[in-house]
């Protein structure tokens, strides 16, 4: 058992290292900017005095590595500095938006995961049937749709009739039930996009598994189809399914950006897009770091869980 914990510890260490390197990339990217950052933000007409003042404000007069460690130390404690656009503390901007985005992502995941796993397993069991072909074609189609297309189709059909609001305007006072109702369309959009991916990947993983000799052996032992699936396929399917789920939750992270913009939902994605067009880079850096950290943590969790579900690794020789 110690071997596996060493493995997991190593994986976590690697995850933290990756995160560290990512933070350097996210911070260091601004250093790639040709010329002076302050000048390029203020524009050509800025006087040398304003540029100098702005540089001090940004801390650009300090060497890069010191600025980086100041930034990182702040970020770890939740302090990302101040926004260039409105001079507010970034942590204030982010706080409620982060929980809004998490809410939306979890909402979508809560519908998408059970739905797509069920569909994927059914499609694998009845592969090459009409159901499988239809599900496959449908999934392929919805994977191909840009998120904003799905979103507008839903708005066209569901919001115009007044069934659901086309704008997901929520604030800290919105009650939970109301949140669910108001964010239904964005959540459904994300669900549709992610379900297709997840279903196809689950199907592929299960079919791959059903071709194993030990599944044929179970059938030759006269086991019922249900038992073959539950007792023989499922314990071995955990690792691939965990990977599928993690990959798609990670996909949700990117998916929220567009969906939040379409539905004018006050989340991190919308904040990021706004800040990109204003070139408010401290905010962009902060949001990028949060997204990247979530992404890395998801993959890390998935790896650890699939390690723990692999009998070859848990029970060493």
């Amino acid at each position, binding site marked *: 058992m110690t071997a596996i914990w060493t493995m997991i510890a190593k994986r976590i260490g690697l995850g933290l290292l990756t995160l560290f390197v*990512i933070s350097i990339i996210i911070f260091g990217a601004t250093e790639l900017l040709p010329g002076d950052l302050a000048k390029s933000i203020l524009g050509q007409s800025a006087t040398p005095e304003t540029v100098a003042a702005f540089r001090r404000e940004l801390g650009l007069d300090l060497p890069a590595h010191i600025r980086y460690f100041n930034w990182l130390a702040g970020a770890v404690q939740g302090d990302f500095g101040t926004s260039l656009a409105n001079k507010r503390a970034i942590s204030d901007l982010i706080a409620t938006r982060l929980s809004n985005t998490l809410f939306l992502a979890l909402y979508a995941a809560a519908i998408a995961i059970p739905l797509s796993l069920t569909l994927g397993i059914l499609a694998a069991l009845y592969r090459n049937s009409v159901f499988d072909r239809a599900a496959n074609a449908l999934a392929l189609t919805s994977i191909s749709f840009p998120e904003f297309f799905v979103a507008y189709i839903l708005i066209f059909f569901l919001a115009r009739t007044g069934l659901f609001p086309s704008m997901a305007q929520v604030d800290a006072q919105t009650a939970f039930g109301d949140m669910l109702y108001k964010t239904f369309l964005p959540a459904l959009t994300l669900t549709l996009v992610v379900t297709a991916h997840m279903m196809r990947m689950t199907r592929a993983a299960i079919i791959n598994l059903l071709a194993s000799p030990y599944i044929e052996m179970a059938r030759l032992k006269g086991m019922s189809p249900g038992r073959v699936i539950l007792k023989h396929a499922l314990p071995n399917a955990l690792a691939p399914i965990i990977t599928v789920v993690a990959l798609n939750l990670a996909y949700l992270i990117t998916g929220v950006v567009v969906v939040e913009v379409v539905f004018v939902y006050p989340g991190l994605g919308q904040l990021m*897009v706004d800040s990109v067009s204003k070139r408010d880079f401290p905010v962009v850096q902060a949001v990028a770091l949060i997204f990247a950290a979530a992404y890395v943590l998801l993959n890390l969790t998935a790896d650890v869980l699939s390690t723990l579900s692999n009998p070859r690794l848990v029970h060493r020789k």
Partner: protein
Amino acid sequence: MALLLTLLKVAIAIAIAMASGWLFRAALVAITRGETRKMLRTAPVSAGFGMLVVFVYVFVAVFAHVIAPFSEREIVGAQFLPWDSTHLLGTDNLGRDMFSRLIYAARNTVGIAFATTALAFIAGSFLGLLAATVGGWLDQVLSRVVDVLMAIPALVFALLLLTIFGTSVVKMVIVIATIDATRVFRLARSVAMNIVVMDYIEAAKLRGEGLFRLIIREILPNAMAPLVAEFGLRFCFVFLMISALSFLGLGIQPPTADWGSMVRDNASLITFGNITPLLPAGAIALLTVAVNFVVDWSLHRASGLKE
């Protein structure tokens, strides 16, 4: 009732799509010979439909200036004119002809996405094949760098880089191509890894073949099939990403006609029950579906032949 009508319309559309896919496949079978013909004959109708759509898009992109009744950027009337015989799909938020812009956007959006994918592909697959063939520290360095770059979500990374470099088509192409090249690298490397362990590669090394010939003559021909399928998938990914960025106002910039920004500019019409802004979005979706159908078929073929 309205729902039933919609369902009926969808069913008719699917039937037409299947019929046209079938016909296009029949036409292709009639004009081809030998292996290609044999391969096409077993293609599913969906793949036939996919090929037809791709063919139409390419045709429209190439002959955009002939087909489009108006120019790309000219203001030809009032804003948001409804559909009529002059302006088939009405006019947009600035009074430009919607139909013409839709046609020109085929050239712009598809062309830019294709160029980006090609760039990502050339860089990614070359480095991937090189890493797998040479191995050792080169492989280690390249793989670690790619691992880290891939640990940042693609859209988030693109947004970060675009903030720093500013938005322009050339910068966007370079940024997306770089991000996408990491994905291509990973696939090309893993495909090539399975090939370099083959005895025929060992035989070629022992024969004294140089690195260049080893990659071009021995490895590349065997990596082609998965790489071509991946090209289709990467194209879809890049195409959707560029559309998303344009939709967010951070990609292809006005006045260039582009499907993503056309949706954004005219989105307000949707709440009034006008489907015009959905057309450019649908144009994006249709091409991606088509490419995916063809890729799905080729992947299925590749896995079927292995058994």
